């Protein structure tokens, strides 16, 4: 079964390299914050650095901006080594986590702050400011005092202030973390729209994997100063390279398995609950061949609760419902597959408006070999 890439209406501008990290290391005294970062970010893409607190994502972002130096390696922006380029001369601009709006200035003065040394006339600068404000949906807010704005408005001012300078790269440091859920979802869409409209490279730092999945063209998942995996959202989700990545992005269920044999690009394994498995070594089995112990992982939505008479697409197994968790549009069923002791989480949309099973019910569960991932 082939899965088609259906990335909706994203202009395929991705071509030239805009940012490149070559074996970048950074130490804070004895603390090894960045441990050999190698990556490229393409021009015009929406790139995210994703990871838990302390993984080094913000540090890496700041090395692009110039607020942090590096201990060794090279950081290239637009093919230029940034080693001797101070922050105020780089072709990048940043939206800070606290937005850093100058409280003693008006919205206009904030947005136009970076134009101070610009040789254009006052009228031209004023119209540039108006344009920038229109782009972020703040037309008419020019004369407002900056300190009297809401969080969402401040963020737009920060965006306008950065984008008016037409940087080659826009850096965003956890821009949505201070907003409430509704505002966040709104701004996510806004940011995507903005990036398409402006067409420049966006590099976003976030610890929220949902956010990264929604907005990015590609994501670099970072743990402890290293990039664990760099891929587009779908690949990251369906083919995570390590358990850590799998765990961090979305929810994944794990069952122990034993590898029986490996030949012709196929791996035979025996797994609790699922029985005998034949997996594609190239796309489904992660990690280097070492011992025979392994873990099989699968996402909640890849298992289907089968109704009476319904046929399983590939294989099926019996399970007992242990817990029902209602989420409004979805219900999560915690089940125990026959022959296992661990609880697995399945999800199902509440097409009937409410959960369909009670605790203790026995049910048939359909599953597909192609949806499984194995970690050695």
């Amino acid at each position: 079964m082939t899965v088609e890439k259906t990335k909706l209406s994203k202009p395929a501008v991705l071509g030239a390299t805009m940012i490149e990290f070559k074996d970048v290391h950074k130490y804070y005294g004895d603390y090894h914050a960045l441990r050999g970062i190698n990556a490229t970010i393409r021009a015009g893409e929406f790139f995210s650095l994703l990871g838990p607190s302390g993984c080094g994502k913000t540090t890496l972002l700041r090395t692009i901006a110039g607020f942090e130096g590096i201990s060794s390696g090279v950081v290239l922006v637009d093919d230029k080594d940034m080693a001797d380029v101070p922050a105020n001369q780089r072709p990048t601009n940043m939206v800070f986590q606290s937005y850093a709006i100058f409280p003693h200035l008006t919205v206009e003065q904030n947005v136009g702050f970076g134009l101070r040394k610009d040789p254009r006339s006052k009228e031209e600068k004023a119209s540039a400011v108006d344009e920038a404000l229109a782009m972020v949906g703040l037309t008419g807010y020019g004369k407002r005092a900056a300190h009297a704005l809401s969080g969402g408005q401040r963020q737009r001012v920060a965006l306008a202030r950065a984008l008016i300078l037409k940087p080659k790269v826009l850096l965003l440091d956890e821009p949505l973390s201070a907003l409430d859920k509704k505002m966040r979802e709104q701004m996510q869409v806004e940011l995507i729209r903005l990036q398409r409209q402006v067409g420049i490279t966006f590099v976003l730092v976030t610890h929220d994997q949902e956010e990264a999945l929604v907005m990015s063209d590609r994501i670099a998942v970072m743990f402890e100063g290293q990039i664990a995996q760099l891929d587009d959202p779908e690949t990251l989700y369906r083919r995570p390279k390590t358990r850590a990545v799998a765990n961090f992005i979305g929810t994944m269920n794990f069952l122990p398995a034993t590898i029986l044999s490996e030949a012709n690009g196929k791996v035979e394994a025996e797994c609790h609950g699922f029985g005998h498995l034949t997996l594609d070594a190239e796309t489904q089995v992660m990690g280097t061949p070492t011992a025979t112990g392994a873990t099989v992982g699968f996402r909640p939505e890849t298992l289907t609760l089968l109704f009476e008479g319904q046929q399983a697409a590939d294989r099926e197994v019996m399970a007992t419902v242990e817990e029902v968790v209602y989420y409004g549009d979805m219900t999560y069923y915690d089940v125990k597959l026959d022959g296992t002791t661990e609880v697995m989480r399945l999800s199902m949309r509440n097409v009937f408006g409410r959960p369909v099973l009670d605790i203790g019910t026995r049910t048939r569960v359909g599953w597909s070999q192609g949806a499984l991932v194995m970690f050695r």
Partner: protein
Amino acid sequence: MKLPVMKIYAIAFLIFLYGPILLLPLFAFNDSTVVAFPLKGFTTQWFRAVWADADLWKAVRNSLFVACTASVLATTLGVFAARASTRYVFPAKGAVMGLIMLPLVLPDMIMAMALLVVLLSLNIELSLVTVILGHVLICTPFAVAMLTSAFQSLDKSLEEAAYDLGEGPISTFYLVILPLVTPGIISALLISFTISLDEFVISNFLGSKDKLLSVYIFGQLRFPKNVPTIMALGALLVALSVILLTLAEYFRRRGIAKTGAKDTGGFV
């Protein structure tokens, strides 16, 4: 009936605090050279005496000159020190800041004498300048304290944002940092000014024939017949202080409103 004990105590305390001061206007209008009851009648002669006393006004001019200069110098030095201590880590920082703040825990007399001895042995003549030097020494720690709190409440990313948008360290300072610490600068100026104006020990021992107001007052109090004039002067000074302080508080609140920061309670 439950006695509001605390409130009674508070009122009594206030009476204790204000007693000496409220007596000032009382005896400033009293037609007698004796500061005692009963009151002998209303007169404005003491205030007229204040107005007529040329030496007094010279002393006032001297004090104002010294206070203005000292407060500006102390605040400037304070800006340097506060900025350095809040923004940077440098070797011997504790020792350096400790020395700068030391005047807070040293009695005035010791500092005055130490300076005096040094100045005399270097054959430097005493004048208003030497007084200013001493005043700056004791006012700077206060300025540093005020300014440190102002600098600390600055969001660090504001500076980075200014850099990111193309500014350098100096232009960032006067475009972003300075406007935001202005309330702190004003507080530092005011507190230094007030301390300098009222300071006695250094003004007395490091001064020369150009007397300062506090020294002049001290000298006058030895002569009973000059006492009521000093009462009148004291009453005026009280009124002036209250007006100045109220203004300062007003501007401080306005400054906060302009930048939308939180009110942390002023000089407290």
